[in-house]
């Protein structure tokens, strides 16, 4: 199959992974200035299973709030819209896909890789004290390989072709894709992210996480995703369909100031966060 046909096939997929309607509504509502905590609280609370998941995550050591948060409205007041929106998103994505049982790329391992990347990106944004919101960085990391989700769930045969090359050459998934088509999971992910109405920074980051210098405008998100993906692979949690590590773009290492000292600090904090994120990892396995 050539690239054009692949593109046509993607365009015609009619059962794409979708976010629950309530999540889409929340994404819309949090964009509007007139929304208040009660409105969004009610939207989430109407969905019983989402409420349970969100409250579990909100109260997990990952967010580390001393007192127990009992209602969604309370969570919004304490954490703010942006954080709750991202928690809702995180609570929803793992369950939205039903990967085929015998897929060549295991969907649970992919989500573990994505979650680890999110955690690394969040710490990168935090330690760097950047203007990038740390929860935005977290969600972007979580979604950076969205294109692979589509390959696994909707384009099984293509996923198998790519995996065959990965197995044969022990190369990167991305390189195998490039061998077959002129675009890969980075572009496929963008296509879905646009349908989901994710914010433009995030979309640009997803698009360029393997070629961070190609990002237009502010490159920080792409840089953080590029580094987050590589460090998550190094830490050997989860698997995104291959067993190799791409080269870190030197410009990214320089811009993010990844000196030995800073990498040392980063790894210590990431490993501590991974321990605290058990509820997130449990969610992956509960739902797949």
């Amino acid at each position: 199959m050539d690239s054009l046909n692949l593109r046509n096939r993607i365009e015609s997929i009619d059962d794409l992974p979708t976010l629950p309607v309530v999540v889409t509504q929340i994404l819309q509502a949090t964009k509007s200035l007139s929304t208040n905590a009660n409105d969004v609280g009610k939207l989430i609370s109407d969905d019983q299973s989402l409420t349970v998941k969100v409250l579990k995550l909100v109260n997990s050591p990952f967010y580390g709030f001393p007192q127990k948060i009992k209602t969604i409205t309370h969570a919004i007041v304490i954490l703010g819209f942006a954080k709750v929106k991202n928690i809702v998103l995180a609570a929803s994505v793992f369950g939205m896909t039903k990967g085929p049982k015998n897929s060549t790329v295991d969907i649970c391992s992919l989500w573990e890789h994505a979650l680890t990347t999110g955690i690394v990106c969040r710490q990168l944004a935090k330690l760097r004290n950047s203007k990038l919101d740390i929860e935005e960085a977290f969600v972007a990391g979580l979604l950076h390989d969205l294109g692979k989700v589509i390959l696994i769930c909707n384009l099984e045969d293509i996923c198998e072709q790519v995996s065959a090359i990965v197995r044969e050459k022990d190369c990167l998934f991305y390189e195998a894709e490039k061998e077959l088509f002129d675009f890969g999971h980075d572009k496929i992910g963008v296509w879905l992210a646009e349908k989901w109405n994710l914010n433009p920074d995030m979309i640009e980051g997803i698009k360029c996480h393997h070629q961070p210098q190609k990002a237009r405008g502010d490159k920080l998100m792409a840089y953080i995703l590029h580094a987050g993906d590589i460090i998550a692979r190094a830490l050997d949690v989860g698997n995104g369909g291959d067993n190799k590590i791409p080269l870190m773009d030197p410009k990214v290492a320089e811009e993010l100031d990844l000196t030995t000292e800073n990498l040392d600090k980063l790894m210590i904090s990431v490993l501590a966060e991974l321990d605290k994120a058990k509820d997130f990892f449990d969610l992956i396995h509960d739902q797949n």
Partner: protein
Amino acid sequence: MIKLIEDLKTGDVIKSEIKDGTGRVVVKIGSKVTPLLLKRLAKWGVKNVEIEGQEPKVEAKKVEKVAEKKPQNINKELVIRIAKKFSRVREDPFMDKLMKLTIKHLSAHAKPES
């Protein structure tokens, strides 16, 4: 090679002369270690002497191994797994640094096996 008095063996050949407190040579180069000389050296308070021959290789290796083990009990499987992932990018100084840091932190973080 320099040997501690307690490691000297009968038959070892002295390579540097041994002098007493006044500078007088008491043991000449080329003298062989005898039980009597061992007693005298101990009496004079000599701590170590240079003798002919090279440091035995096996012993040197032993020292290295102990030194390696001391700082951390690094999990061999972990090192192999991580090194395999990095195999294509290790010539890059940054990636090599990242690999070493990863191994260091994952080893330190791993819970002791029960």
